[in-house]
């Protein structure tokens, strides 16, 4: 059990703001982070409001400096399919873009706020993911994207916003549902610079992040039981950690500690560098081909699964930069929100630039209450279901609930113990009667009817026995847990987690300088080699390509310390190609050999059986 200071309680009558402040998180950022939680009103004042109509036209509705929260929620009738969005950075001309980038460089130098990636993202993936990564980068030429100059201008503008008033705001909401009191902390960032600043997947204007604390009531006190952080690729139960789970949740003076991803602002429970993976969107036929190949590769050939279409991205949540929260130099300015807050419920548009990215990564998010398409956000309308807490009782109610369950099951077992022998006896009586009707042609009808009755009754007895067996096992398990809880042993705090987000281990990050340099230049060198081959020896292009590719794979595997593994996989791949060639030329003889082998095997088996 946590010491009292680690699990501080509050009176159930505490005002919402006091509750929020008592458990407000402490957020630790990575050195180099450029954006921090900001005030909605100041952000909106710095934006313009636009409408994107179904025909693809963009119309400026309210100019920068003229927009405020009252203007934002003004009713604006529009055709179906119209999307409203804010723009934090206005369209930039060439000279403005160059100026923004120059200012960004100067700013980082003055503030000494430069991010050092350490071990590069590319060195963590193999050669194939790097090829796919290059395609991913090229895809930005065709998809909508937030330009690099916009990221630079956002960084500079945000700096000036902070210079005026350095205020870090969270928007707190308190929800009371079933036996739980849920505290939600919403944070608005002016910009998500994960791609441009930290080699991540995407950039977009504005970013909404959320942390929740779940309290249960014990008599007149509220006690924290769960903390849930929104993060990439995780859903439901995987989002929450139990308050006493010291291995997975840092709590400082009763405040949970959040490690924020650099640029992405995703929240993590432990400091470190997280490898997230982005799936490249593939056409359906290619996706089917990939899954068939994967089944053949792993199921038939017994090889390790390998998906080159997953690109590794690193989310840096080192926690070595600015910290905001209780006891820190920078503290929170809390603001209460609920459905009655106009900008929360009445503005359904995007909170930043709509980049027309069909896979949405570069489009700005909507507000706390809505998704990008205007539908309600589940984290808002169902905060318990969002983290899989619907099925979890209040800890105070747990033992009585289990006792009730146990009593019900015991009663049912008692009933079954009485019912099963009675029914079984009935079956036997009917069976005896059936036997006496056999070989009596004039009783055929009665015989058939009795047979059906016996079949139904037998099925019923079978089902009752199965129920008895299953509920006995269930009762045993339930009683074991009950005894364990009563003796003061809590449940395993990780039992509910299916996929645990864990930072990459230091041993996995020990790629040498040569490996990193190779990761950076290998693709270009490969392309140069192919060009050289095309110009100097076009006659040997296929052989040259095979040789160059194999050479690159071998170098790569040496540098990544995976030579044995890679050689194994390459050889099996070559063997598959050679098998196809052999089958193409010698299918008749292969068939003959297979039939002969089968005949020989069967002959051997039968002769062995014959001779005992």
């Amino acid at each position, binding site marked *: 059990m946590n010491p009292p200071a680690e699990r501080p309680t509050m009176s159930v009558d505490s005002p919402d703001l006091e509750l929020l402040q008592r458990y407000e998180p402490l957020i630790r950022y990575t050195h180099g982070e450029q954006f921090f939680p900001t005030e909605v009103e100041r952000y909106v004042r710095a934006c313009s409001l636009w409408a994107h109509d179904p025909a693809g036209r963009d119309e400026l509705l309210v100019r920068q400096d003229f927009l405020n929260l009252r203007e934002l929620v003004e009713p604006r009738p529009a055709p179906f399919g119209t999307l409203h969005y804010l723009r934090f950075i206005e369209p930039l001309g060439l000279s403005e873009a160059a100026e923004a980038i120059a200012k960004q460089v100067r700013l980082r130098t003055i503030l000494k706020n430069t991010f050092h990636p350490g071990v590069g993202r590319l060195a963590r993936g193999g050669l194939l993911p790097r090829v796919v990564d290059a395609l991913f980068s090229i895809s930005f030429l065709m998809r909508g994207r937030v330009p690099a100059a916009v990221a630079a201008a956002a960084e500079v503008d945000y700096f000036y916003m902070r210079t005026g008033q350095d205020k870090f705001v969270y928007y707190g909401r308190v929800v009371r549902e079933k036996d739980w009191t849920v505290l939600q902390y919403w944070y608005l960032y002016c910009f998500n610079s994960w791609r441009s600043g930290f080699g991540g997947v995407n950039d977009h204007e504005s970013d909404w992040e959320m942390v929740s604390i779940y309290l249960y009531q014990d008599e007149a006190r509220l006690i924290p039981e769960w903390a849930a952080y929104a993060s990439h690729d995780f859903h439901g139960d995987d989002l929450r950690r139990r308050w006493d789970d010291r291995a997975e949740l840092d709590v400082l003076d009763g405040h949970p500690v959040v490690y924020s991803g650099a640029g992405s602002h995703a929240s993590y429970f432990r400091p470190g560098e997280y490898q997230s993976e982005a799936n490249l969107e593939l056409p359906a036929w290619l996706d089917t081909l990939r899954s068939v190949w994967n089944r053949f590769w792993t199921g038939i*050939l*017994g*090889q*390790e699964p390998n998906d080159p279409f997953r690109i590794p991205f690193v989310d840096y949540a080192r926690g070595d930069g600015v910290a905001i929260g209780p006891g820190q130099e920078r503290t929170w300015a809390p603001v209460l929100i609920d459905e009655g807050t106009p900008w929360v419920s009445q503005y359904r548009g995007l909170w930043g630039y709509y980049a027309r990215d069909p896979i949405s990564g570069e489009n700005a998010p909507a507000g706390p209450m809505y998704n990008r398409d205007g539908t309600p956000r589940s984290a808002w309308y169902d905060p318990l279901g969002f983290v899989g807490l619907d099925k979890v009782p209040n800890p105070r109610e747990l033992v009585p609930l289990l006792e009730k369950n146990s009593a019900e099951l015991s009663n049912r077992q008692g009933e079954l113990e009485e019912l099963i022998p009675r029914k079984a006896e009935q079956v036997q009586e009917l069976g005896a009667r059936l036997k006496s009707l056999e070989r009596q042609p004039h009783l055929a009808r009665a015989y058939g009817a009795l047979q059906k009755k016996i079949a139904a009754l037998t099925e019923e007895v079978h089902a009752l026995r199965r129920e008895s067996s299953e509920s006995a096992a269930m009762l045993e398990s339930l009683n074991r847990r009950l005894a364990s809880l009563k003796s003061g042993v809590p449940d395993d705090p990780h039992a509910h987690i299916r996929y645990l987000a864990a930072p990459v281990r230091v041993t996995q990050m020990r790629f040498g300088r040569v490996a990193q340099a190779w990761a950076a230049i290998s693709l270009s060198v490969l392309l140069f080699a192919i060009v050289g081959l095309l110009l100097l020896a076009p006659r040997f292009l*296929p*052989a040259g390509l*095979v*040789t160059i590719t*194999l050479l690159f794979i071998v170098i790569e595997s040496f540098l990544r*310390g*995976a*030579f*044995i*593994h890679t*050689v*194994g996989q*390459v*050889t*099996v791949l*070559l*063997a598959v*190609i*050679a*098998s196809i*060639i*052999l089958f193409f*030329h*010698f299918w008749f003889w292969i068939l003959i050999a297979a039939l002969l082998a089968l005949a020989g095997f069967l002959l051997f088996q039968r002769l062995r059986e014959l001779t005992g």
Partner: protein
Amino acid sequence: MRERKKVWQGKRPVAVTIVAWGIVLLFLVRLYQVYLPLLQADLLEDGIHGPLTRGMRLTPTGAAVLISAAYLIQVLVGIVVLIGFLRLQRWAWVVLMAWTAVSLSITLINYFYSNPNYIVMASDVIIAFALSQSDVQRIFRIRTDADEPAR
């Protein structure tokens, strides 16, 4: 004296025997290739009379000797690998797999550009599939547990 750790005490998997026979087959093919250039150049009957090089270039006799020597080296390496393989040494598995990869690459390139050697190709395929069997990899300590190949 400490008892020597026995790497593998159970029945030898069929795949290991198949690979061993594959190596023997390749050994015989390479042995034939050692003699072939020497026979074609009549060097076994007449001995080496002419020069092996002329300036910076090999003479036909020199080329025959060089090719034969290259295959001889392969035969010798094959013998060493076969011994290591039968003693279930990890390095033997790695060398054999790498060797098979190189051999398959050469055979495939030959298939597209000149006359392919189907016997070598078939032997390589059998060796590659046999070596990639999970029980074989475990015996050679390439795969450390049921699912995770060693790196």
